[in-house]
């Protein structure tokens, strides 16, 4: 967007703050997934990463001055309901993924006695070497 370049950085930040939050959450979540070896923390990072997407979808769905998409007297502008429906689905998917991830973490803890990926990698390498 060329007109954006003319404005000050502060204004760009202020008018698009939803997107800046989205980007921050996205990068933070991804960083946690990559940087942490603890499986629960990995899942937390994954959750934050997925949450950023909810915001990305919901932001353009909101129309300034628009009301909830219900036909009533006096309302002419409505927000787009589709993003909300999509994100409701995405939240359900996210919860299912988190539940399965935690279940696997419990089973891994039973099998290895730890949920640190670095420790498990060490065990796996030893097993490979012993074979």
């Amino acid at each position, binding site marked *: 967007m060329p007109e954006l370049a003319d404005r000050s950085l502060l204004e760009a930040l202020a008018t698009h703050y939803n997107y800046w939050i989205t980007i921050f959450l*996205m990068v933070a979540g*991804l960083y946690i*997934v990559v940087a942490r070896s603890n*499986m629960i923390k*990995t*899942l937390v990072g*994954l959750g934050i*990463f*997925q949450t950023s*997407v909810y915001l*990305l*979808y919901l932001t*353009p769905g909101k129309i300034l001055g628009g009301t909830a998409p219900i036909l009533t007297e006096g309302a002419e502008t409505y927000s787009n309901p*589709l*993003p909300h429906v*999509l994100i409701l*689905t*995405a939240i359900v*998917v996210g919860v*299912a*993924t988190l539940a*399965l*991830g935690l279940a*696997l*973490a419990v*089973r*891994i803890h039973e*099998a*290895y006695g730890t949920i640190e*990926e670095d420790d*498990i990698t060490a065990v*796996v390498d030893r*097993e490979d070497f012993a*074979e």
Partner: protein
Amino acid sequence: MIPLAASSGMDLMSQLPALQVMVPLIGAVVTAAIRQRHIAAAITVACSVAMPLIAILILAEVQANGTISYAMGGWAPPIGIEYRIDPANAFILLLVSIMGAVVALYAPRSMAYEVSEERQAWTYAMYLMCMSGLLGMAITGDAFNIFVFMEISSLAMYTLIAMGSERRALVAAFQYLVIGTLGATFYVIGVGLLFSLTGTLNLYDLAQIMPAVEAGHRSAIAGLAFIVVGIGLKLAMFPMHLWLPNAYAYAPTVATAFLASTATKVAVYLLLRFVFSIFGVEFSFTATPMAEILMVLAALAMLVCSFSAIFQINVKRMLAYSSVSQVGYMLMGIALVNEAGLTGGISHLFNHAIIKACLFMAVGCAFYATGVTRTENLAGLGRTMPLTMAAFVIAGLGLIGVPGTAGFVSKWYLVQGASEAGLWWVVAVIVVSSVMAVFYVGAVVEVAYFREPKVPVVRKPPTEMVAMTWVLTLAVIYFGVVTDVNGDVAAAAARELMAGWAR
């Protein structure tokens, strides 16, 4: 929802696209509710065998009357969810459903041997769920619906992998869960960018709007990038393949054979759909350096992963690394951006599915008989299990691409595409990678045929397991000679894709 009540013959025919997805989905729920392993096996086989019949009817309909558009629940597209079937995804539906049926017929006793008794019914439920998700991804014409089906199939896959008998299967499943979720989320970010740009999620509608908005628009480029990376994680595009070797190596044989032959293939189809049909050749390959990037990554996959495969000591891991390198061939077909190359890529998708499922099923038979998967322990099996190892050798020849096998057909098209584009180094890479395949397949053959038996054959592999392996073995030879499916249908799909959807 679906007016199935008045199911006279005609009505049922027009509901085929819905049935293709609903039958395994309902089967999965029923299986999970009954939780009795014999009934579960029966339901799984029944649902899986019905799938190819439906897929064949759909393909015949597409070939006779052109693209099918099915309005899910009676809501007209582009507002409602549309199932849209053209030659490209009719082909994928047929592939997934045939592989699903063959593996399901192979499954019962392999599963009984590898998965503990109380988990078998659940595993069958996950198998059907995974099949439903994969078929849904291929059949639907709605970008967000693809995400939902992608997660249905992926969650089922993570569970299937975790059912492996070794504890390492759990770690493999967890790692795949993390990477798979990242992939799906990247995909959904890309779709979100396109949605905010165009206001539609219907793929066909999207394709009509994109040409007007995509020129020089950064959101379009970012959307394409997110979608390609997301799908790339799912299809194990080099260097995003690190989840795959462990997942394939430690999953139960049934899961490995099914996933290796379908999951990555459906992801390749999605990549084709977005890059060619929706963004269009023009935008995808001129506004972005995607052809160059894909070409380099494909070449690296073909060389590096074939090289890694040579040094694996576990035969399942060896085949898994080989899968990554074979995905490289398919991506190379895309990156060449000409009809011959693309035909080769699509054809290889089909051929590799048959070949790799056959190899994994042969290894599954050997595992059933001896309880080993390390290559050196397969010593002498050529003499003690002649039928199984003969199937392995023939499918192995297909993997190498010997003339007369299915693998040769796709490599021939690829070489043709590369020479049309004047890229002789690509031809060289294909040849070198095929030579490496001689080494890693040859290592197993050498051990199996030229060494003294090491591990005794405890019991004979069941007839149906060997029979299903041989069905695929014969298919490897059949499709190497008769090329009307992997040649002509693939070429029709390639033409359809190259033309794009934008009118």
